[in-house]
């Protein structure tokens, strides 16, 4: 059990009063797990398709390594009919790698971080750079946070985020790397 003395608490309050308060997105009370992104994907119930895509892509080491990355992870249902081909197919390894790169951003991004950024955005939207040099734009629709890939698809952040040892998994209900309708 961690004991925090009254004096320490008062000192902390005093410091907080003197210094500019960190923004709400700077902290993050939740503790990350000791499992990597790759391990968390494997253990997640509704992210099995993306885990198979990861294996097919040959990028497992990336999600087992230091990172950190944030993966916007389409849930299994999101892949139904998303494209004409299967990203798990051995013939689609390059496409599998492309899919992952377009759904990943550098660093650890919690949902609280996105919310805080949206809270201070004057135009109600914020952007994140993907690892294939794309841009994901986040907006709020009611309580939901919506992610839209430039020239691509749209998805809502859904379920519970997973804080892995080397990044964050943010489940989404759609595949962002979708070709615009013809």
């Amino acid at each position: 059990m961690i004991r925090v003395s009254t004096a320490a608490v008062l000192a902390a309050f005093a410091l907080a009063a003197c210094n500019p308060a960190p923004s709400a997105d700077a902290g993050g009370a939740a503790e990350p797990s000791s499992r990597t992104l790759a391990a968390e994907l494997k253990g997640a119930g509704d992210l099995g398709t993306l885990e198979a895509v990861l294996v097919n892509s040959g990028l497992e080491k990336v999600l087992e390594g230091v990172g950190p990355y944030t993966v916007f992870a389409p849930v299994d249902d999101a892949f139904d009919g998303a494209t004409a081909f299967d990203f798990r197919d051995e013939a689609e390894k390059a496409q599998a790698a492309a899919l992952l790169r377009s759904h990943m951003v550098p660093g650890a991004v919690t949902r609280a971080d996105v919310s805080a950024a949206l809270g201070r955005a004057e135009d109600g939207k914020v952007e994140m750079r993907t690892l294939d040099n794309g841009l994901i734009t986040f907006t709020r629709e009611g309580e939901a946070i919506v992610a839209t890939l430039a020239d691509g698809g749209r998805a809502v952040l859904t379920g519970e985020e997973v804080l892995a040892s080397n990044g964050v998994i943010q489940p989404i209900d759609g595949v962002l790397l979708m070709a615009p309708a013809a």
Partner: protein
Amino acid sequence: MRNFLMITAVAAAALTLPAAAMAQNGNGNGKGQGNGRGQAERGPDRDDGDRGRGRGQERAERRDDRGPRGKGDDRRWERAEVRVQPGPRDRDRDDDRRWDERQVRRAVRDGVPVVVLRDAPRNVYIQGCPPGLAKKNNGCLPPGQARQIARADRRWDDWYWSRTRDDGRWRYDDGYVYRIADNGGVAGWLPVLGGALGLGNLWPQQYQYAPAPQYYTDYWRVNDGYDYRYADGVMYGVDPQTQAIGSVVALLTGQQWNVGQRMPSGYDVYNVPYAYRGRYADTADSWYRYNDGYVYQVDPTTQLVQAVIQLLV
């Protein structure tokens, strides 16, 4: 756990110091030779770490710069800038300068150089015929493989590979993307991650790369005998004997963050790794953003990058 944090707080004004090295790429076809005046000190094991095999000839003039002082720290910083022609990954950047300034930073601590390479080859595409395609008149003869390319009509493929490359039409086939010329022939080609650049495949001889800077191999804690190479936003581990790709180590944005310049777009959200959130929390005066192994301090009002922070754990 040894936690070694190296902080480089470089004021924007420091960039105005004289003798910051300037180099200019040539025609974008050569290999960086680092043959400029004032050769920087080179480490014993990564001698070519900042020469790379980048596009264009580099005429670097470098200057040693004493970094953080005191406390017995003999760390030295060397600063250089190079100019490189922006590649396709730069195409939607905030500015429209034809030439994009890059910084090369080197730290030397305890006599061991830590090379921070802020430049890398930009593979726009490899001109000419890909392996296995014969050249004929305007472009490459399209039988066999190329005919297969021409037949390929998968909307997703055409859309994706064209959106991630430079202007023009691109087609994917069997591990490569092909630039389709106006006459329907193949104007150029590139291997892609997961395809020709997939695990177990031999590194394509014509595909340019930069030796991964030691900072990257330190940061991503890789040291298993591979030859580590950086190309187009990916760090690979390549077997030095067989030239086979044995590992894909890291994905990077490859974006350039230079002190005194505006933060690139796409970093509106706080993303600092957990371990550093206590130290680098956003405040009214400073934002902190992570990218490619570094944390950057940014002025929230001007969006100018104030400092580059290396994270070595």
